[in-house]
């Protein structure tokens, strides 16, 4: 912090004849030094006088901010009904006063940004979500571009798919495996506590197998991919949008949907089921570990019981859901990215919105599939 005390600055009030007064400044008026005393300077200017003169003849140096404070003090005295003038300025001090005081003050063209309440904020965000995102426009554009891609497959930037699959699939494998292993392990623990009471330890395998393949592995994998790849897609496209790279693509005759959106959609649609199959395996492995260490069940017995309980349909239904999870995550991320505006802050907003909306969509899609499978007897 700047030292507020400077002996190089001084000011005194001198009462003259006929009710006139002078504030005599001396030394160096640099705001870094004089601001701490500024309140006392203002107090010196307060007692009414027929005319108050700011005498700067003893001032050697005046910087920009101190000039602004001085001019403001003069205007304050005038606004309070007094008369005030600056006298005795010379050389550089005069030049500073001319530079800073040459333009008449002008009111702000905008009101300051309003501080909004929590309810207001919720309302605004909801409207933004529904309105500004232009989700229907985007879906329409995707359908039109999809028809174009079917007619002319060269429209899609296929070369990008392999790179994206590596990023969204291979690179996210470690975190997907760790999380699903822990989920399988925790589920087995919770189930074991209850089932032990009935001597039904072996049914831990049934419970873990079914819950992991049908719900937990697809959901957890989709959530990780939404947080990782969905956010990355949105931030990437958002940055491209604000730096005019999307516009540049258009001027080069490349369609952003074929070039950017379809490869990302295709990537997640392909990658999510593959990750989910691996998540199923590692989730069950978590259950095996608990069974072996805590329930005295051998790995062989556990796997045989799992095989009996979990059918091909259970695995398939989980994977089928993830195709739609992937579709939702990619479309939402790309839509939010392409709708980004407002610089770096806009990119942050788009990314947050993409992740939150993707999580919401995952749960909704999951609920729809659960109802449908139930209705069709699965």
């Amino acid at each position: 912090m700047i030292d507020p005390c400077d002996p190089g600055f001084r000011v005194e009030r001198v009462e003259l004849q006929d009710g006139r007064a002078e504030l005599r400044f001396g030394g160096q008026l640099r705001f870094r030094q004089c601001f701490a005393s500024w309140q006392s300077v203002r107090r010196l200017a307060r007692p009414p006088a027929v005319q108050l003169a700011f005498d700067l003849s003893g001032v050697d140096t005046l910087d920009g901010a101190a000039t602004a404070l001085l001019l403001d003090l003069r205007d304050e005295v005038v606004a309070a009904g007094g008369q005030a003038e600056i006298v005795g300025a010379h050389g550089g001090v005069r030049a500073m006063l001319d530079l800073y005081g040459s333009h008449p003050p002008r009111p702000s063209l905008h009101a300051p940004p309003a501080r909004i309440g929590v309810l207001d904020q919720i309302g605004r965000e909801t409207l933004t979500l529904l309105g500004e995102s232009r989700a229907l426009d985007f879906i329409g554009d995707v359908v039109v571009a999809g028809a174009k891609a079917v007619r002319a497959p060269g429209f899609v930037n296929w070369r990008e798919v392999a790179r994206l699959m590596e990023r969204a699939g291979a690179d996210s494998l470690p975190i997907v495996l760790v999380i699903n292993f822990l989920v399988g392990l925790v589920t087995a623990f919770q189930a074991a506590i209850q089932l032990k009471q009935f001597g039904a330890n072996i049914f831990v395998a049934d419970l873990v197998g079914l819950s992991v393949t049908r719900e937990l592995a697809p959901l957890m994998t989709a959530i990780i991919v939404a947080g990782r790849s969905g956010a990355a897609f949105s931030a990437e496209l958002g940055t491209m949008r604000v730096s005019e790279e999307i516009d540049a693509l258009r001027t080069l005759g490349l369609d952003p949907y074929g070039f950017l959106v379809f490869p990302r959609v295709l990537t997640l649609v392909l990658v999510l089921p593959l990750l989910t199959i691996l998540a199923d395996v590692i989730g069950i492995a978590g259950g095996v570990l608990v069974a072996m260490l805590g329930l005295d069940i051998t790995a062989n017995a556990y796997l045989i019981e799992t095989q009996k309980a979990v059918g091909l349909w259970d695995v398939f239904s989980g994977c089928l859901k993830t195709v739609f999870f992937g579709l939702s995550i990619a479309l939402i991320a790309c839509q939010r990215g392409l709708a980004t505006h407002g610089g770096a802050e806009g990119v942050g907003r788009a990314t947050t919105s993409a992740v939150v909306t993707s999580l919401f969509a995952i749960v909704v899609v999951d609920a729809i599939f659960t109802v449908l499978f139930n209705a069709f007897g699965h």
Partner: protein
Amino acid sequence: MPSATEPIVETKHLSVGYGDTVVLENLDFVVPRGDVFAILGGSGSGKSTLLRALIGLEEPLQGTIHLAGAPIPREGPPAAGVLFQSGALFGSMTLAENVSLPLRKWTTLDHHAIDTIVRSKLRLVGLEGFENHLPNEISGGMKKRAGIARALALDPSLLYLDEPSAGLDPVTSAELDELIATLNASLGMTTVIVTHELRSIFAIVKHCIMVDGGKRSIIARGAPAALRDGSDDPQVHAFFNPHSRAG
């Protein structure tokens, strides 16, 4: 009190670059106090790298940079104001908040005093009335002027400008040159400017150096008009007389 003849910036055997890559080496030059000093050079010549080192954003690979006779201070209020090429205004803050940021950080001024100073700085660059605008609501030229207002907030004695005219129309660019010249003449503010704009160079620059990435050194120094008329170096000649080369 610093003497008027003391150089405000002085480099000795300065080498700058990134990692192991040396972009410019063994640079010795001084910026006189109160000067408008330009760093010139073609694209990729390393002038922005040099500027980053002068500002203190990059450590020199070798050599020293002295600011008013002392190494660049690493703590405390900044010794120099900086205008970045894009203005680099904080997008979530209004222009007034952008300009007031260094004042709030480095002074204990009250709200009224800060508001007064901020308005005066924005008035100085012709942006009074735009206090409550966000950066994305104003033009490129206005962003640069707001960037200058922020750089001037603490009344520095040294101002660094990175390509202030880049991307501006000739009228806005000329207005900006006029502002820089006024600040220099009225406040005695030393200005170090990185630019390509010949019109700006001849309008406001008193002394300059020209750097070359190929030779990794300073290839010319002096007053712009003297270099234009008197340099034998083909690169310097081509820089100052681009049309004679085309013709």
